[in-house]
C-alpha cells in the first residue's frame, strides 16, 4: 500500500500484554479454588502437617464420607429440592407477567415493575426474622416449600426482569399475525411465543437456580431438623474431635459442581442474566 496505515490496529498492539493480564487474573481466580480441591483430596493429617501444592497420598476418603453418610448427602438432596421448586415456581409465574410488562401498558405497571426491583435488591437479613415468624405461624417452618417461597422474594423479580428483557426483542408483529391466523392467547403463547424465547427461559431458570443455590442466610433460618441444607451441614464440620478440614473442602467442591456443569451452555448470556436482562 502506498499510504501506509499503521501496520496494526491499536487493539492488536496490546496482544501479548492482554495475554499476560488475562493469565494473571485467571491465576488469581483459580489458586483459591485449586487449594480447596487439593485440600479435599488430602487426609486431615496431611493437611495439618504440611503445606504442599499437591497431595502426597491422594485420597477420596472425604468424598466417600459425604456419599456414605445420609446427614451429608441429604443436605445436597434437600438443597436441590427447594432450589428446583423455587426455579419452577419463579419461572412459571414470571412468564405471563413478563409478557404483560413487555407488551401492554396498564394502571400501575411502572410502579409494579419498580416494586419488583426493590425486592431483588432487598437485604435478606431484613427478612430473616419476619420470614421465620411468618412460616412458623402458618405451619410451614422446616419444609422445602418454605425456603422455596422465601427465595421467591428475589427470584421472581429476577425472572420477570430477565424474561422481559428477552421478550422485548421479539417483534410485536409476530403476536398480531398469530391472532389474525386465529390463535387464542393461550395457544399463541404456548405454541409460538414460548419456543421463540426458549433461550430466555433457560437463562431465567439458570439464574433462579443459581441465586437460590448460593443463599445460606434464608435457608438456614427457615429449616432445622427435617430439612437440613448443605450450608448447615457444612457449618457442622467443626465437631468435638476438632475441625475436619478435608471434609469441609470436599463438601465445598461438591457445591461448585452444579454451577460448573451448566455454565458452558449459558456462557453467552451470563452478562445479560446478571444485568437483569438489560445488556
Amino acid at each position, binding site marked *: 500500500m502506498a499510504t501506509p496505515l499503521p501496520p496494526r490496529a491499536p487493539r492488536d498492539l496490546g496482544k501479548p500484554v492482554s495475554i499476560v493480564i488475562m493469565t494473571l487474573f485467571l491465576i488469581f481466580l*483459580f*489458586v483459591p479454588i485449586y487449594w480447596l480441591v487439593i485440600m479435599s483430596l488430602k487426609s486431615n493429617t496431611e493437611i495439618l502437617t504440611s*503445606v504442599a501444592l499437591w497431595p502426597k497420598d491422594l485420597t477420596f476418603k472425604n468424598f466417600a464420607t459425604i456419599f456414605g453418610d445420609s446427614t451429608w448427602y441429604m443436605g445436597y438432596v434437600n438443597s436441590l429440592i427447594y432450589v428446583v421448586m423455587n426455579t419452577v415456581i419463579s419461572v412459571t*409465574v414470571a412468564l405471563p407477567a413478563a409478557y404483560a410488562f413487555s407488551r401492554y401498558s396498564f394502571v400501575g405497571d*411502572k410502579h409494579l415493575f419498580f416494586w419488583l426491583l426493590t425486592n431483588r435488591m432487598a*437485604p435478606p437479613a431484613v*427478612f430473616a426474622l419476619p420470614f421465620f415468624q411468618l412460616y412458623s405461624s402458618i405451619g410451614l417452618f422446616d419444609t422445602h416449600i418454605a425456603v422455596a417461597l422465601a427465595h421467591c422474594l428475589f427470584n421472581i423479580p429476577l425472572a420477570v426482569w430477565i424474561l422481559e428483557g428477552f421478550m422485548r426483542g421479539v417483534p410485536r408483529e409476530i403476536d398480531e399475525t398469530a391472532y389474525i391466523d386465529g390463535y387464542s392467547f393461550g395457544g399463541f403463547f404456548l405454541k409460538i411465543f414460548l419456543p421463540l424465547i426458549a433461550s430466555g427461559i433457560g437463562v431465567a431458570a439458570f439464574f433462579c437456580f443459581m441465586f437460590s443455590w448460593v*443463599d445460606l442466610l434464608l435457608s438456614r433460618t427457615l429449616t432445622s431438623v427435617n430439612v437440613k441444607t448443605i450450608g448447615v451441614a457444612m457449618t457442622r464440620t467443626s465437631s468435638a474431635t476438632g475441625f475436619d478440614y478435608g471434609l469441609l473442602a470436599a463438601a465445598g467442591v461438591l457445591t461448585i459442581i452444579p454451577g460448573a456443569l451448566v455454565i458452558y451452555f449459558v*456462557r453467552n448470556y451470563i452478562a445479560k442474566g446478571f444485568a*437483569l436482562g438489560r445488556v
Partner: protein
Amino acid sequence: MEKTVNQKAWFLVLPVFLLVAFSAVIPLMTVVNYSVQDTFGDNAFFWAGLEWFEEMLSSDRLWSALGRQVIFSATILVIEVPLGIIIALNMPKKGGWSSFCLVMIALPLLIPWNVVGTIWQLFSRMDIGLLGSALLAMGVEVNPGKDPVAAWVLVVVMDVWHWTSLVALLCYAGLQSIPQAYYQAARIDQASRWSVFRYIELPKMGGVLLIAILLRFMDSFMIYTEPFVLTGGGPGSATTFLSIDLVKMAVGQFDLGPAAAFSIMYFLVILLVCWVFYTVMTTLDKQEER
C-alpha cells in the same frame, strides 16, 4: 414502540403480584409492627411510638456499622470497576479461547456464598492455607482473628475475587456491541489507544457500566454470608457490616424493636438507591429507542 393499553394484563401479572406480596409485604408489615412497639416478654406488646428509631439514630452502633459499610462498598467499587474494565478490554474477542475465558471468569459468581467464605478461610490460614503460609514465610503475619487490618484486607480481596468478574462480564458485553467500523475509523485517524478507549469504548460501555456499578453497590451493601464465614464480623466488630449487625441484633440478641427500626432505615436507603437506578435505567432505555 408504543405499548397497547390493556387493563386485562393485570390478570397476567396477578400471580407474581400475590406471591411477591406474600413474601415481601407481610414480613415488612411485621417489621413495621415491631418497630413501634415494646415488650416485657410474654407476647404482651405496647405502643412505643418512634422511641426505637430515636434510640437507633442516636446509637453509635448503627452509625459505626453504616460507616464501615460505606467504606467497604466504596473500597470494593474503586478496585473492582477499573479492574473489571481492564479485564474486559483484554478479553479475547472471539474463538475458543474467548469461550474458555468467559466460562472460567464466571465460575466464582456461581459458588455458594458460604463456600466463598470457606475457600478464603482455608486459603488464608497461616497453618494450613497456601496464602497465609506463603506470606508467613515472607515474614508477613495474616491473622484476621486478631488484626483488624488483616481482616479488612482479606474481606476486600475476597470480594474482589468474587465479584470483579461481574463487572468484567458486563463491560465485555458492552464492548462486543461496538461495531468494527468505529475501530477502523479510529485507525484511519491514527487515534492512540487511550483516545480509542476514552472516546469510543468508554461512552459505548456507559450503560452497562452503570448497571454494573449499581449492582455491585447494592449487593455489597447487603453482604452477609461471606464476611460472616470468613471473619464472623471480627475481630471485635471491625468487619461487622450492616447485615451482620442486624442479624446479630435480631436473631442473636432478639432485640426486636431496635432491630426492626434498624431494618426499616436500612430498607429506606436501599429503596432510595433503587429508585435512582430505575430512573437512570428507564432514561437510558428511552434514549436507545430513539
